[in-house]
């Protein structure tokens, strides 16, 4: 229990009130050490067969907090500790702002609790670590509340929503454990099929709801775009990278262990919710102007895709098509890993851009490509991963997901009607989402980094210190490396989770699915692009005539010579067509302020600004009404405690009469 020892060290340093700079470096280096050992333990866990058990017995017979690393747990432990390692490298070089120093304790508890979630042995320790993760991340979200007052309300939303997820977690586990003998301390290894279906179906439903909240699926995603951006950069990287993966881990656990019964249609529900989440949040991301909120929205979009994958898994299990089901599982795992890596880079690069330009709004950026070469290029690498262009792991994962969706119903004709209609819909949804994701990330890279700097902030941007950029680089390699060696990685995961996808036949670079007659070699695609580029580049070099230095040229300025940055399309202008097409989904509030000439109403003065605030459909339609309903009921309830003693005595009197009559009948 090396982990425990190092965690305690991190805790001690966290508590020590030493000076800012020293403390930041000390805690982050300790976190780094801590997560590095995490990676080591995960690798050991993956390789050796026997499971490491460690049970801390508490009061009663089954109330024991225990750690036992299953294979899947080890895989996710690898993910969590890798993300934690890179973020702590990033945070070593952070300036010791009060926000960072005050939250160093919470940082190490956050990482520890996530490791606890992954390696929990029974339901109770899972919930214990789950809640611990929530509080420590809440403290981190609130760490710089002084600067952003809005993060106060984000904190409120976040805490209430995660409490809702914790409650449904507890209820789900209790309803499942009630179908099982209470004494069984390890809740997920022993049984595949629960005895009486209705109760465990409710349990599975509740658990999926709980993990759905954490992952940010449609009706309950409202807190994610509020909470993730409120945290400092490397914390939101950690949150979007690994905390969301905890939700996915939970989903996989519930689905593989409890999802066996035939009757209930959780699969279809998940696919529908997942597809809607993906489309809804990517549209919101497209028109979002704040960089970090945009990234948080794209997190819930990727989670939507993952939910579709999990839904396919459940449907295929129900259709007894285990090959497709396991492919869907592999796709989900790859997508989670890919998302963790590229989202991490995006948040870190956004953090360094923010620290350089002090603004998060894309409309105020521009021309950063030339000023901040390194962080913009890492951001673009992350963007390639986010959009899923060929050489990236996301591309392979989405390809695998599409293959499973398109093939699972094709074969067995006896499949029920629902998947026949649902799967093509899901494919269309995934395609639309990737399409709009292309628009979103082109907007950031194109508008944000190319062209002329739009504001003085963008003009004065200067590259962030070298050391903060090592971490994103390390993460960047992990987007493309596993994609290139996809054959090896898939075989490794297949053998670890024994999904028996019979992938062992090809080399290390191609992932072929015999049953689906489909195979893909990302290496070949990348190779083609590179050699064509070289050939074409070579030709241009050869034929290019030597030219003398050309005078400064100006693009077409519609008659004007001096062109300035206001000519360029702004970020919101770039995605205005999407806003127009999907306006009933987003119902943007639009207000136009016109400053009028003094003498007549019809002549506008110099400037006219159009503001359009995008509100969240679900928050306005679904959550706010429920909250105001509770308030109304609470208002009426206040009369219960109306102050007059006679009222209170009447309550007691009625209670007495009721009890007497019931007791004596």
């Amino acid at each position, binding site marked *: 229990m090396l982990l425990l020892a190092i965690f305690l060290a991190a805790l001690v340093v966290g508590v020590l009130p030493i000076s800012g700079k020293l403390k930041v470096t000390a805690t982050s280096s300790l976190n780094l050490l801590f997560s590095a050992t995490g990676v080591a333990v995960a690798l050991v866990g993956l390789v050796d067969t026997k499971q490491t058990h460690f049970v801390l017995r508490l009061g009663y017979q089954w109330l024991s907090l225990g750690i036992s690393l299953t294979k899947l747990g080890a895989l996710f432990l690898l993910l969590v500790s890798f993300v934690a390692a890179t973020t702590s490298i990033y945070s070593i070089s952070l300036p010791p702002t009060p926000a960072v120093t005050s939250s160093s304790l919470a940082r190490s508890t956050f990482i520890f609790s996530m490791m606890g979630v992954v390696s929990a042995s029974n339901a109770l320790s899972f919930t214990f670590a789950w809640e611990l993760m929530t509080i420590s991340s809440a403290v981190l979200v609130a760490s710089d509340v002084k600067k952003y007052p809005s993060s106060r309300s984000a904190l409120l939303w976040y805490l209430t929503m995660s409490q809702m997820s914790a409650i449904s977690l507890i209820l789900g586990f209790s309803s499942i454990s009630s179908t099982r003998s209470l004494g069984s301390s390890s809740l997920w290894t022993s049984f595949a099929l629960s005895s009486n279906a209705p109760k465990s179906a409710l349990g599975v439903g509740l658990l999926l709801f709980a993990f759905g909240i954490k992952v940010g699926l449609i009706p309950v995603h409202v807190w994610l775009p509020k909470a993730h951006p409120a945290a400092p950069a490397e914390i939101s990287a950690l949150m979007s990278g690994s905390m969301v993966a905890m939700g996915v881990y939970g989903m996989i656990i519930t689905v593989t262990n409890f999802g066996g019964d035939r009757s209930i249609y959780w699969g279809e529900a998940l696919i529908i919710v997942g597809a809607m989440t993906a489309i809804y949040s990517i549209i919101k991301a497209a028109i979002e102007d704040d960089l970090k909120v945009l990234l948080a929205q794209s997190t819930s979009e990727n989670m939507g895709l993952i939910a579709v994958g999990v839904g396919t898994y459940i449907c295929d299990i129900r259709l007894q098509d285990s090959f497709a089901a396991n492919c869907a599982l592999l796709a989900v795992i790859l997508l989670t890993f890919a998302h963790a890596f590229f989202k991490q880079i995006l948040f870190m690069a956004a953090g360094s851009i923010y620290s350089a330009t002090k603004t998060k709004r894309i409309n105020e950026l521009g021309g950063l490509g030339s000023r901040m070469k390194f962080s913009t290029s890492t951001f673009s690498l992350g963007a390639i991963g986010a959009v899923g262009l060929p050489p990236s792991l996301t591309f392979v994962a989405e390809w695998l997901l599409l293959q499973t969706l398109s093939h699972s119903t094709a074969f067995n004709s006896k499949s029920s009607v629902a998947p026949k209609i649902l799967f093509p819909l899901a494919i269309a949804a995934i395609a639309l989402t990737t399409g709009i994701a292309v628009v979103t990330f082109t907007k950031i890279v194109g508008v944000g980094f190319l062209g002329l700097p739009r504001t003085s902030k963008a003009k004065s941007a200067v590259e962030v210190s070298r050391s903060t950029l090592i971490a994103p680089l390390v993460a960047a390699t992990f987007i493309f490396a596993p994609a290139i060696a996809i054959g090896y990685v898939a075989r490794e995961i297949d053998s670890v989770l024994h999904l028996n996808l019979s992938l062992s036949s090809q080399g290390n670079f191609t992932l072929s699915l015999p049953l689906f007659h489909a195979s893909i070699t990302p290496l070949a695609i990348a190779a083609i692009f590179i050699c064509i580029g070289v050939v074409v580049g070579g030709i241009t070099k050869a034929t290019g005539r030597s030219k003398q230095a050309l005078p400064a040229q100006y693009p077409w300025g519609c008659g004007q010579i001096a062109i300035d940055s206001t000519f360029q399309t702004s970020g919101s202008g770039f995605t205005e067509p999407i806003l127009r097409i999907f306006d009933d989904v987003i119902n943007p509030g639009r207000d136009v302020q016109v400053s009028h000439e003094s003498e007549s109403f019809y002549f506008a003065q110099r400037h006219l600004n159009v503001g359009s605030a995008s509100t969240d459909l679900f928050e306005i339609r679904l959550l706010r009404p429920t909250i105001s309903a509770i308030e109304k009921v609470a208002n009426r309830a206040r009369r219960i405690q*109306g*102050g007059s003693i*006679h009222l209170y*005595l009447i309550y*007691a009197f009625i209670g*007495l*009469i009721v009890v*007497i009559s019931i007791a*004596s009948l």
Partner: protein
Amino acid sequence: MTFFLQLCAGTLLISTIVIVWRRSLKSTARLLSIQGLALGFGLFAVEVTRGNSLGVAISLTVLALKAFVLPLLIQRRLKIINQDSRPSDPSNNELRDDTYLNPTAGVFISALLIGGAFVVTGPLFTNTGSTSSYLAPTGIAIVLIGFLIISSRRRAISQLIGFVVVDNGITATALFVSGGVPTLVELSSSVDVLLVVLILQAFTYRLRDHFGHTDISQLRNLRD
């Protein structure tokens, strides 16, 4: 023996109904002493038939307590109010107790309660050991009426009276069901009742000098 208990139950019921009916506090104090007398006499009769001397002694003390001490306390309290209350202002006449229920409604509801008690709890008390257990529902009825008094009277003193009626009801049930509770419980419960009455009296003084009146229904500023 059972004749005595029936007589005692009858007087108890009548006196409670009259308490509900009458408004003036002075007459209710006198009715309370009648109730105490009946109860004490009943207890004394049961203990005599059982023949254990300790029981007899206790029943006599309870008789003394319920018949004389409590009503005395209440009468003394009324005398004090009489001195400093202003007879000229009828609304604040401390002696008359205005209530949410007018007398006829009060009597009708208490009759309803008595009938209900007998109908509902009657069968329960059939096969208990002692012979007089069929009278127990009267005790429960008295408790219910006592509650009615507490929750419907506006004056602080009348709530006190309601509380004493509830306690008499309880001792009556004990008397009828099992001929009185064990000595320790008997003693402790009557001591407690005495203490509560004393405290409530002390508080009525405190209410008077804080609020200037003892009308409970105006106590409204502690609400949510």
